């Protein structure tokens, strides 16, 4: 079984994240970048299956700027067998539609039985890429899974819907997305880090994939305005000396909140 895990590099959420005020795009120079935690969890789902099924092949796939190589190495150090890195100048600021087209082309090229993604990326928070991939590839789709069992011909899983959970079965080939209810990824150990240096990273351009980013080709979503809100300032801070509840109620009354 060949499993593609979609890993994404994102600005570290523990820092103040910034947008470039010219373009409205994430300002990658502003702080640290990390492998999105949810995509590490997706990788863990694949590795857990590979632990028990040595013939399984786990490929980490990412569309990201050239600078993302160290994040992709991290996916290899955690345990992916190889990686595919789609890099192209023309992808700077790619919208969801172009991102999905490119990722689908890379998956088609590699030929996957199963694609595992996060349910939401922490920077874009689109939550649509997995469904878009399923449509592109005509794979069965099961999104927002909180428990996953992989078998040779199907994935059975618990899916969190808007109204509660359900059991789902997706015949392979399939695209599934997982939630943060699934376990964190194993930590890369020294051996993994050393091994990762020798694992292959295939770097692909748009031309390699036969995809064009030409805006005349398909409609794209563009940012037409960006503005920054002044940061919120703290207000009153009191130390409870027995009358904090009374003071709080005064505050709520004064502000017509009760």
């Amino acid at each position, binding site marked *: 079984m060949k499993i593609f895990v979609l890993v994404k590099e994102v600005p570290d959420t523990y820092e103040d994240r910034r947008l470039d005020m010219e373009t409205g795009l994430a300002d990658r120079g502003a702080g640290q970048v990390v492998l999105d935690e949810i995509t590490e969890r997706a990788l863990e789902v694949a590795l857990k299956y590979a632990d028990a099924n040595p013939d399984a092949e786990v490929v980490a796939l990412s569309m990201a700027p050239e600078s993302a190589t160290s994040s992709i190495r991290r996916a290899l150090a955690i345990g992916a067998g190889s990686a595919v890195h789609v890099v192209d100048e023309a992808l700077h600021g790619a*919208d969801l539609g172009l991102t999905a087209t490119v990722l689908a082309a890379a998956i088609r090229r590699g030929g996957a039985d199963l694609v595992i993604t996060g349910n939401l990326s922490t920077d*874009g*928070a689109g*939550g*649509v*890429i997995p*469904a878009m991939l399923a449509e592109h590839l*005509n794979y069965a789709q099961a999104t927002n899974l909180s428990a996953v069992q992989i078998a040779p011909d199907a994935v059975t899983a618990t899916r969190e819907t808007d109204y509660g959970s359900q059991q789902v079965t997706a015949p392979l080939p399939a695209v599934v997305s997982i939630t943060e209810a699934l376990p964190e990824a194993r930590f890369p150990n020294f051996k993994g880090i050393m091994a990762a240096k020798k694992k292959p990273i295939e770097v692909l351009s748009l031309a390699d994939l036969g995809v064009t980013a030409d805006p005349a080709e398909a409609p794209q979503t563009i940012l037409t305005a960006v503005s920054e809100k002044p940061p919120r300032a703290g207000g009153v801070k*009191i130390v409870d000396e027995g009358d904090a509840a009374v003071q709080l*109620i005064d505050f709520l009354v004064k502000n017509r909140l009760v």
Partner: protein
Amino acid sequence: MPHYESPILVLIDVTPSGAAAPSTAQLIGAAAQLGTPVALVAAPADSAKDAVDSAVAAGAQLVLTTDVDDGPIAVPIVDAMQAAYRTVQPDAVLISNSIAGRDVAGRLAVREHLALSVDAVDVARDDEGIVAHHSVYGGAYLTHSAPTFGTPVITVRQGTIDTRAKSAPEARVEKLTVEPSGAAVAVGTVVEALQIASSRPELRGARVVVSGGRGLGSKENFSLVEDLADELNAAIGASRAAVDAGFIPFPHQVGQTGVSVSPQLYVAIGISGAIQHRAGMQTAKTIVAINKDPGSPIFDVADFGIVGDLFTVVPQVVDALRGRKK
């Protein structure tokens, strides 16, 4: 189908019991800001009637209906939306930014080659066409997005748009013919409702939210949050640490990977205010925090912060509020 001026196609989310989801009124309200709301109800035949009535009451001028089976996930609704899209030829497609809605929006955009904008907090029309407004990085930025050409598919964050359409006495209901695409599909069982419907307000769009964090210490103690919420007629939220510890189920999680809320009043109890939590609540009008650590980052955004033990302060607040009511 009669001609409608600038039709805006809206997908109604239908709950497992056949009701229209709470997002219905805001989606149709948003559509009315842009043109004529046309709604699609794609649900099992026996359960769709309530949803159709709700769509009409919310102001849809035309409601298209089609029966879909219960088991297959997303694909039958995508097929129905595709048929509706081709029939209506709308200026924009509005879909709730729900789990179900995002699946349909993504697939429809791919299938019909449309530009996709997600998680809009408002929609508008300017000289160039239809624009979606977004609140990014926990409300630190506002952005506008638009398609380079063609009809945009826009998912709308739940509980953010206050505009409501007038219900149309001349509204029509028509059956839509749908050709199944035959796309590969996963199948699911009937959804087990998470909890019995609570009388508390829905978290999304709530006017007041009371949230609890790891500081509550246990599931039993979390009832303190519920007591205060009931006195304030509030929805209940939580930090990820509280959800991970099993104090309360995930749908109550507020923050970057949970729900984003913008209430009039947000009360954070035993929550440190990690950046990922603040990302989901710092656009609240007024923030109150109760935390025993004066260095907690939650105090940087709180309008009224109490440095104190929640087990002392919260029961006193609850008692005082009860006293006021007498």
